[in-house]
């Protein structure tokens, strides 16, 4: 366990960084009712790293993820993904960047009900107009334990199975970075545990750089590095922390 008071990440290693964010601020509204969701955040995520972002609700963790993923724009600051500065990109370029470099896993799975499991998995490739690599898709489906479920529709799958389809979908393009937004938030604890194992396994097996936003200590504990946000600032960072370590920090923050 290593608790560091210096909250910044490894700034000195941008060469193999998947994401680099500098001085991010985000303000909602104007004048007296303005809310500062982010108030100056620097962050680097290295390739092959699993980073968890934690914090109480309203801490700005979701805003941070949305900005890093190019879904929202910062009020100031810069974000580079795979060496591209994204904050100034127009919608089409951003979309293409998401297509090539970013994978998403959502809390509510967001599968298309009329497509079967396999079709849902290859959907990002279809949208990009690319042919799926059959062996890669097969291995992903096998990895996710969906080999015998590939022709099933979402309505015929359990919540855990649906989320596994969603993970396979996010990995199919081999994205530079995968964003997981409360991936276990809509699952029971046993199934949630299985999903976390799969996320960890994909980092270990494929070196998949991953940023996960969560408020569950158990989920955060699988990360290589945990960032704690409060009032729009990174206030703490843990490495290889246990669930207890995480809970301890959480308690100290909310106290």
């Amino acid at each position, binding site marked *: 366990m290593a608790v560091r008071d210096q909250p910044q990440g490894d700034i000195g290693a941008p060469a193999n960084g998947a994401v680099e964010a500098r001085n991010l601020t985000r303000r909602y509204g104007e004048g007296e009712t303005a809310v500062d969701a982010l108030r100056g955040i620097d962050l680097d995520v290295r390739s092959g790293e699993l980073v968890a972002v934690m914090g109480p609700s309203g801490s700005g963790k979701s805003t941070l993820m949305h900005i890093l993923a190019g*879904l929202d724009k910062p009020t100031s600051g810069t974000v580079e993904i795979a060496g591209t500065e994204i904050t100034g990109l127009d919608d089409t370029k951003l*979309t293409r960047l998401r297509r090539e470099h970013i994978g998403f896993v959502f809390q509510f799975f967001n599968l298309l009900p009329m497509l079967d499991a396999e079709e849902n998995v290859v959907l990002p490739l279809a949208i990009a107009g690319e042919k799926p690599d059959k062996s890669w898709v097969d291995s992903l489906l096998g990895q996710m334990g969906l080999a015998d479920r590939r022709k099933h529709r979402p309505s015929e799958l359990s919540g855990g199975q649906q989320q596994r389809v969603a993970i396979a979908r996010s990995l199919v393009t081999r994205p530079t970075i995968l964003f997981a937004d409360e991936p276990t938030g809509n699952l029971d604890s046993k199934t949630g545990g299985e999903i976390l194992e799969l996320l960890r396994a994909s980092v270990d097996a494929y070196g998949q750089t991953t940023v996960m936003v969560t408020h569950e200590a158990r989920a955060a504990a699988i990360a290589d590095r945990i960032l704690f946000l409060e009032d729009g600032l990174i206030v703490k960072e843990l490495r290889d922390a246990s669930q207890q370590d995480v809970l301890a920090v959480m308690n100290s923050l909310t106290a």
Partner: protein
Amino acid sequence: MISVALRGMARRKLRTALTAIAIVLGVALITGTYVLTDSIKGAFGGIFTQVYRGTDATVTGKSAFDLSGQNNTTAPPFAQSLLPKIRGLPDVADAVGGVGGNAHLILQGKVVHFGGAPNLGFSVDPKRPELNALTLVSGKWPGANQLVIDQATGRKKDLHIGQLIGVQANGPTLRMTISGFVHFGGAASLGGATLSGFDLPTAQRLFQRIGKLDQIRAKAKAGVTPAKLAAEIRGILPPHTQVRTGQAQAKSDAKDTESFLNFLQDFLLAFGGIALFVGSFVIANSLSITIAQRTRELATLRTLGATRRQVRRSIVWEGLAIGAIASVAGIGVGLGLGVGLFKLFDAVGFTLPNNGLVLHTRTVIVALIVGILVTVLASLRPAFRATRVPPIAAAREGSELPPGRFAKYRPIGSALLTAIGFALLIYGLFAHGLGTKGVLLSMGVGTLLIFLGVALLAARFARPLAWVLGAPATRFGGAAGSLARDNARRNPQRTASTASALMIGLALVTLVSVMAAGITKSFRGAVDDLWVSGYAITAQNNFDPIPIAAGNAAARTPGVQAIANVRGGDAEIFHGVHQATAVGPGGAQIFNMKWLDGGSSAVFRLLGPHGAFVDDNFAKKHNLTLGSRLTLTAPTGKSVDLHVLGIFKPPTGGSPFGPVTISDTAWDRIYDTPQNLYSFVRMKGGESDAAKAALVRQLKAFPNAKVQTKKEFVDNQISGLNSILNVLFVLLALSVIVSLFGIVNTLVLTVFERTRELGMLRAIGMTRRQVRRMIRTESVITALMGGVIGIALGLVLGGLLAARIDFIVFALPWVQVIIFAVAAVVVGLLAAIFPARRAGKLNVLEALQYE
């Protein structure tokens, strides 16, 4: 609960507005129809009252039987000697005699006409202006070889007083000087009609009524009532004349216009009804979708203690409110439509008399009742669906409605509905002795049921059909294309109902095209079968009769081998009014008739004073064989005894001959001022430019006569059909527009429903363009589905009708079918513009968080 329903509507303004548009358009057409026809009726009523303002009693010729009003036959004139007798009656202050009829104005060798509006001429009495139908506006009343012309025509053709102009009525063209300009009654224009006035001797020459009158108008001495005057005149009337009070005459004159306007009104109302019917599909569908999306809200209401009844009522109330708002808006739009129609008619040269818009209470009441009723009826099914929302749905994510108790009977039920519909339609078409009303009712209800049944059945075929129709999209549209196809197949019931609205419109336009193609084909076939070769001479407008002198002039053309002049008019035969025709011996060389019972074209030469030939139907109906006897009575009351010399079978497309045809000489003996309908000329050496030029030269004195080749004749004769066709297409386009709004509505609601899904797609790399393409493609697939089903149904219905109607063969209007399919695609593209823009503009983040 009612306030919940109303507030919900207020919150969903866009959806409510889109739903309401369907009803607004239908109600607008109904209101517009009433306003238009009521206004015209009012104006015409005013005109005729004005025309007879100074007249207390009129005497007119009386036909020997009630005229059909279809065969250019008018009541016979009477001897001018009646006029002095009437003037001599003790209670008559004054009386004026007049003649009138079709009179064509001729400028630079061309007939002046505006569209198909009539060209009318009357005699006027310069000394008795108060008894004239025309009112002098400028210049003087005409003297010998002078005329007055209506001001509207004068302006349009830039005519001036003192100008020379040609006039042709029943004889050759006369040259006259314009002495003044007039109004008809108080109206400056009469729907593009040209009006001219002459002094009596000139008019009698023009209309070939020397020594005869069509009408006498009498003015009573002070203190004598019109009724008393009429009674006094009745005492001295010769046979085949009648007397009416001025007021009664005005009413009688207005009757023809009025019955035409009543027909126009029913005709237009039918299209308003169709638009509303289509609108009801749109409403039912929109409400159903809204209810599916409000499952949670409705379930919450149920958990809070709302009964099924209350839920149902809230939906019906919503329908009622939409119906009321839409109907009121529709009445407003309808008034605008009425004004627009007047302007439109004006723009195409058919200026209608307009004394201001007439909005009767009846119009408002009918529009409100129909609009609200249709909406409420359409909301019933969604309302019952809503009651199936279980309270537990409040706690579930994305729960769906449980199927109803009768869901499993649905396919059988809808098939049964379709079958009953077809049965009724076929019964109406082929059963005997139903009467016009019965036939129309049976056909109408049958067609309605077919549409409902097919719409319900369509849900069963929506998946495979969307699969097929979407195939090109998946090939060329990439992921957006295949997702669009999947989306179209996702909720087959919704896709089918949306498509069905368009289906109705397209089925009807296809049906109309099949009919038109059938008429054209059979007419062309008939002309080819019947008419050997040569030229046809008709009036410039293709249907007015032309003077016999024109036919006689054509007969003198060098190189003429044979000429057949066909005359026609009403006749009374076996106590029924039929169209009778007459032809000369030249017909033997012109027509290639199919004679039954060993007849031959020699019949044409043998007709003589008492010979006749009849068509097979008439022969069968009246048990006529060769040698049978019959009597033909003309409107003049004169009759001729005939015996049957030939029986012919006309081709499917009809023939120029009526059920009974006699010789032209016999005709001219019993009909007053006979005229030709057509003249067919056969030239030596067949058709050639020189032959045509010779005919045209010969007919120079008859500018209203038009020389046409066989092909031109066919095209001209069916050109009227094309105009009717275009009017029908425009009117049916309205229901297509209604269904277009239905597609817009479904797409908008679908985009609402799939907001989060769209957010996800955008997040994982779908561009805005791809999103728009996806919505657009789904729209086109839906529209094409409606198009394909509609066109197929239209062809079936058209085939049935063609099988029933004697003078139509079935013809596939394949060019139109392709155009309609393309039109369906265009409808799909247009409908998608707004929803696709909306979907493309969705904010990814907000969409992802949308519930």
